[in-house]
């Protein structure tokens, strides 16, 4: 439900770095989302098309790289993945003595930009 503010953040970060790099246009944006971050890709895409209009990022494609939520079982040392982002006991030994290894990532990894290079153009 908070995807609008999240999408605004993505736009602000992408624009800031695009301007710093002297970009004329941003074509692609790569975002990493851990399975435990409660973000819905489709909603971000929906807001994106509305709020990126008229910016350097107009028409830029959003790419979401989903990182699985990895759990480590302290009872049997087994490492496993949470399929739906819901906590489950260790599938090997049923222990709940677990620790989260990864899955909470939520960052803008990179952007692909175009820029004018007048020196090299005829």
């Amino acid at each position, binding site marked *: *439900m908070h995807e609008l503010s999240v999408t605004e953040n993505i736009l602000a*970060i992408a624009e800031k770095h695009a301007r710093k790099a002297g970009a004329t246009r941003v074509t692609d944006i790569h975002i990493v989302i851990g399975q435990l971050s409660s973000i819905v890709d489709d909603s971000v895409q929906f807001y994106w098309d509305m709020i990126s209009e008229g910016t350097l990022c107009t028409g830029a494609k959003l790419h979401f790289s989903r990182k699985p939520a990895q759990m480590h079982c302290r009872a049997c040392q087994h490492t496993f993945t949470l399929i739906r982002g819901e906590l489950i006991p260790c599938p090997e030994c049923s222990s709940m003595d677990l620790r989260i290894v990864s899955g909470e990532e939520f960052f803008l990894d990179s952007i*692909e930009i175009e820029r004018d290079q007048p020196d090299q153009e005829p």
Partner: protein
Amino acid sequence: MSPERVTIVEKIMDANDQIAALNRARFDRAGVFAVNLMASPGAGKTTLILETIHRLAPRLRIGVIEGDTAPVTIDADKVTAAGMPAVQINTGGDCHLDGMMMSRGMDQLPLESLDLVIVENVGNLICPAAFNLGTHANVLIASIPEGDDKPYKYPNIYRGLQALIVSKTDLLPYIQFNMDYFLKGVEALNPGLVHFPVAALRGDGMDAWIQWLQEQVAAKKKA
């Protein structure tokens, strides 16, 4: 024209985190301990706040920031009636408070003359977890009627907590709630998290929670 990849690696919540850090610094300067109280709707946030004020009021000056999705002042009115300054923040339908709303709420409180600020976040188990406010402690109220599976279904909100209140324990005889199962889920998500079982209206367990809160306030005053 040449397409080119620019590596960024910037946390998407970074802007909010920075505002939250400023809020935190303001609380620190004023010597105020601030708590962000989160829960689902109906878990007993307002009741717990009122009972907490009732017990601490003679000794501590407490300010309350009420987050609501609509301009409904029911909760803020109750706090004001209890004799403490309350600020109502209408999120305009948003599902959570964020650092900026928090900052505006702080502007309206006499921070210098307070010891404790309690923030009542919007009733929601998903969104508030993603937005730091700059408070010193995130506290979740999980009520017995919500069921013992909530840590398993909403793992995110349990991750950033400094304390957990298990409310409405007086309903345990009437509801299927496996406390052991519930706490095992909590432990996996947030090892060593302190928790307080309470029945706020009856007063059960309130002393331990009040004791914890007073210790936090005292530590902040000394710092």
